[in-house]
């Protein structure tokens, strides 16, 4: 699509160093000034199941979208080839170890039978034998693909001999063979590789030395034989510094900036890495510290976070669906007690354990109405790492300003993809803690003279009460028929106040020209994929717009109504990672406007630009009003 961008993939078993490889590559490429996004797809498994890294490298922009086909496929094993051969573009390259040629599909135990039988069918249809060698030959002969066959063993033997490494240890270097081959084909410079290695391995000089030696060697051999067919043009990106971070990382950084002081969590994919980051970066010396605590379960996580918030700390917890499902009772307690607590909620495939390491956007409606009873809340979502950074800070400001619990709704796609980005501009970031008072004698925590009562912390000079029951102004239980309604109204009216006060820009954004030929509606991680698809279609003469929903509660009703009422609704398409098209449901719920076209994906894999582009055309042509995307492995 963008001919100067490079889409590449590395695949292999979990635990074989793929993540490290991705980090090294990303750092090296960033060092060379390229924009990179790197998505990691993996099973719920620690060792052995197939995993892969899917990267988009651009010399002229910071890509935040993913697409197929790939130009380069680095295979650690035969499973990678069987799984991804269809992902390769004409003229592409597949790098593999010569030993895989002999591997038969049926002998790959780590591949689930169901997947195997699916691939078997494809091979049969194409008349390809069931061994990786036949498949590679087919690719070379029929698809214009070049096979870069390497002898992994001899490389490993070489460093084993050279550095006196025992051979079982040497296999750890396998992934560097792929890095070397890629470096050769792409022509990543040696200093860039070295830089990438240093970032990853710090002062472990030996490791760096061995790796450089190996990468160098492979790289030279490969470019001698194949040239540098994938050589990237020099970067046109004019950035001197790049932040390289996953979604988990960037949110954690934002929380540090926001002044988070208490984070409780219970480990869960894909949220736990955020807390791990915070555990590592929790001590700022004289600038303060964050208490990060692993609790006994998610119930304790939310309730201790609430406790900390009552005492006056900026407080949060991070989780995903199963964890949130245990938090809903506490969430409601925060609601009735007007507690500013932030829940960073990374969606993954559901229901129940669902697809624990795969992405989804299927918890939207749940977030809007989770917990029994009614109370004001904020549900804020972010479209990419950059938005997520600022939103994560704003989540705390809004929580404290309006004294409501905030759900920051993200997803696995964001959590686990690593991107390069410009360093956030902190000069415009504000910390707004709302109206905080010291309390003093006679303090009324829920003073009805204001909808948002001045907040004193437990530990101030005041004495105050909180209860999960309906209460009076002091926080004492109250069942009086008149006053219960008044306190109820006080809480609910915040929704109106927030609706009036919170800047629209934080809640919704429109991208594209005026009067578009068609309009995509989406939220969260689909944002940049939509923008890229619109960009692609523009070249075909189709003028597209993208309505990016960011805050679902309070929902920007008027703005959405205005935009949608201006559009021919048959040219509006909701794009989402779920089945029910929940954003369209939300729009219908709040505005009564029903979007009837949708492009959805619910197999746990991200939406790719190429399939979205196609699907948009299909919908616009009237062929179908619902397209279910399925691409990916």
């Amino acid at each position, binding site marked *: 699509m963008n001919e100067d961008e490079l889409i590449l993939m590395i695949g292999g078993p979990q635990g074989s160093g793929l993540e490290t490889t991705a980090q090294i590559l990303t750092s090296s490429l960033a060092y060379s000034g390229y924009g990179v996004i790197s998505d990691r797809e993996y099973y719920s498994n620690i060792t052995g199941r197939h995993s892969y890294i899917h990267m988009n490298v651009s010399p002229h922009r910071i890509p935040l979208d993913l697409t197929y086909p790939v130009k380069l496929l680095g295979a650690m094993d035969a499973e990678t080839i069987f799984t991804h051969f269809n992902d390769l573009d004409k003229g592409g390259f597949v790098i593999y170890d010569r030993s895989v040629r002999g591997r038969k599909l049926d002998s790959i135990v780590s591949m689930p039978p169901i997947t195997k039988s699916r691939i078997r069918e494809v091979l049969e249809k194409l008349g390809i034998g069931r061994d990786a060698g036949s498949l590679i030959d087919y690719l070379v002969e029929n698809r214009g693909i070049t096979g870069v066959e390497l002898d992994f063993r001899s490389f490993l033997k070489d460093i084993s001999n050279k550095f006196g490494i025992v051979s079982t240890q040497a296999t750890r270097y396998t992934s560097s063979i792929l890095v070397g081959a890629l470096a050769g084909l792409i022509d990543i410079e040696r200093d860039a590789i070295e830089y990438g290695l240093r*970032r990853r391995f710090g002062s472990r000089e030996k490791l760096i030395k061995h790796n450089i030696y190996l990468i160098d060697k492979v790289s030279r051999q490969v470019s001698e034989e194949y040239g540098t067919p994938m050589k990237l043009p020099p970067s046109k990106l004019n950035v001197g510094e790049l932040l390289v971070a996953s979604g988990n990382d960037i949110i954690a950084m934002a929380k540090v900036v926001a002044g988070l002081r208490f984070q409780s969590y219970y480990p869960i994919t894909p949220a736990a890495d955020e807390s791990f980051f915070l555990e590592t970066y929790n001590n700022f010396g004289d600038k303060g510290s964050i208490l990060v605590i692993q609790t*006994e379960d998610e119930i*304790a996580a939310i309730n201790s976070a609430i406790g900390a918030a009552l*005492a006056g700390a900026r407080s949060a917890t991070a989780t995903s669906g199963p964890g949130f499902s245990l938090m809903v*009772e506490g969430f409601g307690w925060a609601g009735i007690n007007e507690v500013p607590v932030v829940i960073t909620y990374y969606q993954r495939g559901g229901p129940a354990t669902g697809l624990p390491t795969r992405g989804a956007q299927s918890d939207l409606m749940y977030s809007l109405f989770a917990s029994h009873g009614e109370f004001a809340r904020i549900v804020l979502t972010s479209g990419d790492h950059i938005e997520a950074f600022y939103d994560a800070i704003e989540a705390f400001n809004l929580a404290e300003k309006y004294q409501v619990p905030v759900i920051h709704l993200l997803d696995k796609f964001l959590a686990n993809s690593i991107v390069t980005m410009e360093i956030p501009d902190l000069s415009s970031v504000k910390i707004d803690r709302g109206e905080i008072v010291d309390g003093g004698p006679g303090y009324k925590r829920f003073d009805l003279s204001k909808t948002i009562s001045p907040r004193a912390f437990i530990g101030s000079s005041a004495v105050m009460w909180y209860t999960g029951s309906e209460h009076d102004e002091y926080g004492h239980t109250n069942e009086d028929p008149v006053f219960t309604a008044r306190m109820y109204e006080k809480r609910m009216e915040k929704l109106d106040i927030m609706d009036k006060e919170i800047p629209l820009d934080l809640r919704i954004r429109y991208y594209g020209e005026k009067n578009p030929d068609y309009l995509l509606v989406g939220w969260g991680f689909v944002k940049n994929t939509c923008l890229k698809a619109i960009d692609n279609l523009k070249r075909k003469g189709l003028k597209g717009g993208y309505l990016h929903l960011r805050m679902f509660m309070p929902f920007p009703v008027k703005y959405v109504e205005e935009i949608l009422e201006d559009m021919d609704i048959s040219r509006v398409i909701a794009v989402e990672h779920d089945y029910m098209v929940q954003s369209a449901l939300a729009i219908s719920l709040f505005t009564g406007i029903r979007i009837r076209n949708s492009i959805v994906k619910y197999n746990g894999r991200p939406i790719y630009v190429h399939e979205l582009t196609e699907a948009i055309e299909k919908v616009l042509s009237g062929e179908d009003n619902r397209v279910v995307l399925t691409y990916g492995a």
Partner: protein
Amino acid sequence: MARNPSTYRSGLWIDWCPGCGNFGIITAVYKAFSELDLDPSKTVVVGGIGCSGKTPHFINVNGVHSLHGRAIPFATGIKLANPELTVVVNGGDGDILGIGMGHFIALGRRNVDITVIMHDNGVYGLTKGQAAPTLKRGIKTKALSKPNIQDAINPIAIALSAGYTFVARGYSLNIDHLKELIKQAISHKGASFIDVLQPCVVYNNIYTREFYSERIYVLDEVGDWDPEVKSERVDEMMQKIDQAWRRSLEWGDKIPIGIFYKNPNYSTFEERLSMEVPTYLEKPPAKQVITTSEGRPIFTGDVFREFFSKYIIRTKNNRR
């Protein structure tokens, strides 16, 4: 001059049933707070849900009437965010050893400096008398359609297994004794637990005032009873836990009250946190200033760059 016990009354009408053992407990709390002269604004009582869970509203210190079974997590968050506060949990036996069991154990493992006062009435009072985890098997209290089919939990034994460093039992009608226990528990550094035998006059027609008055004896009055670990020696600790554990098995003709176990030499969670982050006690989460006077983050661009330098790459172009 210490505050008077009555200053700890919130002034609210206490809507427990006349004759309820909870009155004894709250009276002991008022007295203990008074004798410790606790500053109401620096003290927090966290309740669960149940008759017992209402306790915070009746006391004139900060009160958090939390969720059923969750008083301990709330208390933990409050205490760790501001360790200067005195934090006391009041919960029912259903609340703490039923739905809240996981948190009860977790607090023991952490040894956070929190005092848990459990109102042990053998029933779920506020939901009209179902069996609580401390009701013995085979007993049919008033509201049960059949005798209780589950074995009871031994609160003392469980607390010891969980790691509480102060474990005691009181009797709600022996107010002065209970008051002393509460004072000691609060003064104790670490997680303390008091199992308070509390007659529920409406639903528990078995564990009544009469039942207890015939059976209860005070441990401290037993000649050589010494529940306290004096050294940091593990074997002494084990021996004391063991003797407490054996004593906890007594329930029949004789029911001991008093301190079963006490270990003042054991590191608290707060101390462990201070080992990690030396400024923790002095600048705990709730007491840090997180914003500049202009309402900006303390992390300016430069600080950010330095602190997260591992994540920042200066590109080649830049370097040249």
